[in-house]
């Protein structure tokens, strides 16, 4: 008998009583009168910055203005013309030293500032290794809560996705909150139409 079968059969023998799956659809998660406003507020609470793009405004110039000292930008988005590093071409470690990484978010969550980032580039390191991260998301894709978010998620071919809410943080030294533990030291969310 394989180790797998061995373990599974022991589990089968040891189960004494069986419980039914509860009806999860009954749960109505928190709702907000204005999801974008709530999303903006909570994003600030978790240490992020939010910028609303005016229709027609060039995203590149918004980013340049937000990070005037940044020299190296990384992105595989065709509209990001300031990028000199491309995560579709480079190896993961070559993305180290990136000042600002620019990626696209698919779903924003108003209750906790989470943004669903499906992997859409060869090296997902760009989402974590960059000193600062810019996430572009459409205001139309902001939902109330995690139940709504998860009901929309379908994993793509890369088989990886991540909710990100604000910058990397830690309080491991004397409970003092510090932004920028191992990943992005700051996150700006640009909300487009």
């Amino acid at each position, binding site marked *: 008998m394989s180790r797998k079968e061995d373990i599974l059969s022991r589990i089968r*023998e040891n189960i004494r009583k069986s*419980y039914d799956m509860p009806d999860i659809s009954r749960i*109505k998660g928190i709702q907000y009168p204005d999801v974008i406003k709530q999303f903006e507020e909570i994003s600030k609470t978790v240490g992020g910055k939010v910028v609303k793009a005016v229709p027609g405004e060039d995203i590149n110039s918004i980013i340049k203005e937000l990070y005037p000292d940044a020299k190296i930008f990384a992105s595989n988005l065709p509209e990001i013309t300031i990028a000199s590093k491309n995560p579709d071409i480079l190896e993961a470690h070559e993305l180290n030293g990136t000042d600002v990484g620019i990626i696209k978010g698919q779903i924003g969550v108003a209750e906790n500032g989470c943004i669903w980032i499906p992997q859409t580039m060869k090296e997902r390191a760009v989402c974590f290794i960059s000193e600062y991260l810019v996430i572009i998301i459409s205001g139309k894709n902001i939902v109330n809560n*995690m*139940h709504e978010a998860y009901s929309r998620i379908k994993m793509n071919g890369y088989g990886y996705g991540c909710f990100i809410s604000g*910058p990397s943080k*830690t309080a491991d*030294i004397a*409970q003092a909150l510090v932004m920028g533990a191992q990943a992005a030291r700051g996150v700006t969310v640009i909300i487009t139409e």
Partner: protein
Amino acid sequence: MSTQHTKAAKRFLHNADKAKWHDATFWSVRAKRDTMAMSLEEWEELRETASRIKKHTITHMDKYLEMFANNAEKNGTIVHWAKDADEFNDIVLKILRDHNVRKMVKSKSMLTEECEMNPYLEKHGIEVVETDLGERILQLMESKPSHIVMPAIHITQEEVGQLFEEKLDSEKDNYDPTYLTYCARMSLRNEFIESQAGMTGANFGIAETGEVVVCTNEGNADMSVAIPKLHIAAIGLEKVIPDYQSLSIFQRLLARSATGQPTTTYTSHFGKARPGAEMHIILVDNGRSSIIADSEHWETLKCMRCGACMNTCPVYRRSGGYSYTYFIPGPIGINLGMLRDKYKYTDNVSACSLCCSCDNVCPVKVNLSEQIYLWRQNLDSLGKADPMKKTMSRGMKTLFGHPALYNMALKFAPIANHAPRPALYNSLNAWGKGREMPKFAKESFQTMWKKGKIK
């Protein structure tokens, strides 16, 4: 009557300022958790549903594990099964050797602590680098976590500063937490780039998709597997849940319960290896399949390791993580320790005042205090009951079983109020240590009732 816990707690309390800070810090985390809980109308419904999903999943674990493993394999992940800690360690070593790995970065995993994986790999010549800041500090200090979510909480910034001066070449006498965090960041950047493998634990395994989900604030799990070409995920059998909709419930409860945050910064779904990389999942039993058969304690398997029971526990807050003899402290640690070895870890069961606060904050409703109570009831059958308490119990049985004797004792009890201090507060009286004894009333309720003093 002193247990290992009381002796260690006494040492912890010796530094009164630090003990006070410890207590207040965890109480503030508990308060933050309350604020989060109260901000959601559906909070209690979430807890109840989470508990029921776990009960369902655990009692159908064979089915969900098979589904999880099949879907993970469809994603191209290599799935391994380990009966116990030794098998787990062997599997990890074999994978690492097959890939010529000399150094591995890893994110926090209580399972690898449970299996004592790091010393095993190091013995076989593989360097393991912890990447969670708290865990890294402890690794450099050659010390162990004192809490499962805030592992280095008991270490002061001065101690971290002095450690980094020696190990990471930081500035002398600079104890600023921001500065020290950046020093660790710089040093760990090199480790991420130099390592040939990355290991993560798992907060959840999703049966429907075969994904491993990891929640961190630092982003260290993602960093650990975004650069090396080999990802090994270690997951306990009980971490598998049915689907995304179930996950939405646990995700909403986890960080709010653990640290009082609305979410962790990162909730990462690892379904497939990166292009050109390889992903392995190791499913670890190590006693879990037997716990299912334990009618009194199987619900311990519902635990998702948020640490809320520790933060609220008056005994944990005032005695610290190192007072417990099992590597997981607090209410859940008492129970997990007893399930691991009920002879070895009995000292911890007395580290509970049965206030039941843990039961009321647990996001998946593990009946923690009830289980501790049950373990205590069984101490005598394990041959672990305290002989002094047993003698006293026999004495009390005689006293309460003989009304005349009881009334006589009650009549003379107030004499103790006037006894000289050394007669009452001495090594024979455990209740007189660190606290004042209650005063006996001059007259008993029964006497007052008979005299008509009570209407």
